[in-house]
């Protein structure tokens, strides 16, 4: 595996390998010294064309935990602001010979394009409304911490599916792990033709009781002006997950940041069923695992660099 561009082109086997690796990093994370020397001397560039708190910080920290050198470039204040094309920016950054470029872009297919322009491994940290594979992997990891297997689980993804790359990647990832997925939201926010991906579609929460997992999406305020929904009030009345709608044995997830009182009622955010904080924790170890798999994987040999162990003898060894 050289790049992680989307869940669509991930095999179940590759997903399992990343998740197992993340598990071993989770164990490292419980030690006092959390850093391993695996990627010492290698450079990782985070290229972010959209604002991000948790994804960027977790990629930065993941790289640092693996002892890599990290540079984060954000669009504001960079040459991107001066009109440089993505292709030229990638050529510039590639001159530092990075081992990986992590890119977030407001446009679908950006990571795939970058992969064609650089020798580095490319990780898609969100491309438009297309995919967000690292989020989906961390969500699967989080769920497996709780349920062992996703096989046969009934998962509802509720909210603004139309504008959500998280919904698309999670749908594909949950299905690959054996779960059944229902997409639920106002008809204006469910893309025409999405059933072709093999999911169920619901326009109300009537069937939510049968779900094992409720995955709520962020409802963006700017959608109101575009007539997708008449008001946040009506949206919340129909689709908000609250203690009345969330059963005691159902698990609750959300990719963050949460609009308290819109898609989620405050009481469920902090409830024992909520995995929201666990998702953030998983983000770090799963991104460490992804960097590890791409940069030290067996089908990627860069002997001239010599720092990557073939297997994992250094895992858990303090740097």
């Amino acid at each position: 595996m050289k790049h992680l561009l989307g869940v669509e082109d991930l095999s179940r086997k590759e997903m399992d390998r990343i998740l197992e690796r993340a598990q071993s990093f989770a164990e490292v994370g419980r030690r006092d010294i959390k850093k391993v020397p695996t990627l010492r001397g290698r450079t990782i560039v985070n290229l972010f064309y959209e604002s991000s708190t948790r994804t960027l910080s977790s990629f930065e920290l993941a790289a640092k935990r693996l002892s890599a050198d990290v540079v984060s470039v954000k669009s504001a204040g960079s040459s991107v602001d001066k009109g440089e094309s993505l292709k030229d920016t990638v050529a510039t950054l590639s001159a530092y010979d990075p081992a990986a470029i992590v890119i977030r872009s407001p446009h679908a297919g950006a990571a795939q394009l970058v992969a064609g322009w650089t020798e580095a491994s490319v990780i898609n940290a969100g491309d438009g409304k297309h995919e967000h594979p690292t989020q989906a992997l961390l969500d699967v990891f989080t769920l497996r911490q709780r349920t062992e297997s996703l096989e046969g689980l009934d998962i509802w993804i509720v909210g603004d599916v139309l504008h959500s790359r998280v919904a698309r990647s999670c749908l594909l990832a949950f299905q690959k792990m054996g779960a059944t997925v229902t997409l639920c939201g106002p008809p204006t926010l469910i893309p025409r033709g999405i059933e072709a991906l093999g999911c169920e579609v619901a326009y109300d929460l009537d069937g939510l009781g049968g779900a094992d997992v409720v995955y709520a999406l962020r409802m963006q305020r700017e959608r109101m002006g575009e007539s997708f929904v008449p008001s946040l009030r009506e949206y919340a009345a129909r689709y908000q997950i609250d203690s009345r709608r969330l059963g005691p044995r159902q698990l609750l997830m959300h990719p963050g940041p949460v609009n308290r009182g819109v898609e989620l009622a405050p009481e469920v955010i902090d409830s024992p069923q909520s995995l929201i904080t666990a998702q953030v924790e998983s983000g770090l170890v799963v991104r460490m695992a992804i960097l590890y798999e791409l940069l030290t994987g067996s089908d990627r040999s860069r002997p001239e660099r010599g720092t990557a162990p073939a297997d994992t003898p250094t895992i858990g060894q303090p740097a």
Partner: protein
Amino acid sequence: MNVSANGSGGGDAARLISRQGSPGNLIVRGARLFDPRVGLDEARDLIVRDGEIAELAEPGGAPEIEGAEAVDGEGLLALPAFVDPHVHFRVPGQEHKEDLETGTRSAAAGGYCAVIAMANTSPPIDSAAVLGSVRERAEREASIPVGFIANVTREMAGTELTEMAELREAGAIGFSDDGLPIANARVLGRALQYQRLAGGLIALHEEDPDLSSGGVMHEGEVSAALGMAGVPAVSESTMIARDCSLALYEDAPIHVQHLSARASVEEVARAKAAGVRISCEATPHHLTLTDEAVRSLDARFKMNPPLRSEDDRQALIGGLRDGTIDCVATDHAPHAAEEKEVPFEEAAWGVTGLETAFAALYTDLVLPGVLPLETLVERMTCGGEPFGIEAPRLEVGAAANVTLIDPELAWTVGEEGYESRSYNSCFGGCELTGRVLMTVAAGRVAFRQRSFALGVAP
């Protein structure tokens, strides 16, 4: 009063303009001459003298003409050359994408003997002064005849009419704001009324901008999977329905550009049955590709209207076969590399198409038996008729407009580069069958395939 451009005969041929040159003499020996319009399908020697088809002799019966170029046509197909009612040659203002020299060379390389150039240039062709300047350039640079469209509205803003009567006198072959729809029905209604004075067919880019707003590809299963905003098929068909009603009310002819959807074909069929004076076109890419190609996220598959579903494609093929769709148009839309080497949503709209039109349709529709060659030749040669330009014919006394094609030659698109200045072809890298080897336009050889060996008559 010039009531209509439709069916007004060859009178508008004078609006086509190209470089001056001496008429050619040429002998093509033994090619299969194929022109369904005159019922011709047999091996003959084709003799062009002083730019006219002088004789269609028995094979081997061609007389010798001193100094004439002689071509061995054995195994080749000689067709009336094609006419494209819809190209973008980017002059004035965007010569980094294409100009009249490269554009006409690209057309000739695709077997075209005449094209009609759209007016969404920079500045747009909305005044007689701009139109005059591009026509002057065509006199110096165009290797095949070009007709120039002028805008319907000033600055293509969709609000005020251009000086259509003066533009028509200055040589406009028709009118269009192509690239943009005329969203305001009242403005289009006025243009159709004013056409009674000015003459000149109005060609319409049909798109309801409120419905298509923000979209970058066909709205359907593929856009849902890719998370890209869709352009629904109804954004096209509802505008066609509106404009057919207007055309009927004003008793004015209209030409609908680049049909892409089943619903659009159905609207046009209904309108034709109801007596609307309407003609329409479809492109090779909409006839051969679907939105499945967009899964690659390759910006070469981004154009407006977008590639649609297989069901839409089948409806277009059906329409082309039964005549609901009158002609094939390429919508040749060159763009510079940097405008396409960006994420799909950011990329410029449009694909080149002149050099691949025949080969793509021949490979995908004629060879598998979906469309008879006869129909393809008719639809590729009649594109000028709505604008008053007669289709070329292979008959004695006609101006020589001939394309010579090797129907068995398989070639990889783009392998030897393109004649166009741009290379945003959606068929780049595809192997197609059927290659244009030579094109004679308005009596002169306008293109020879480099590898095609030529001799001089002894």
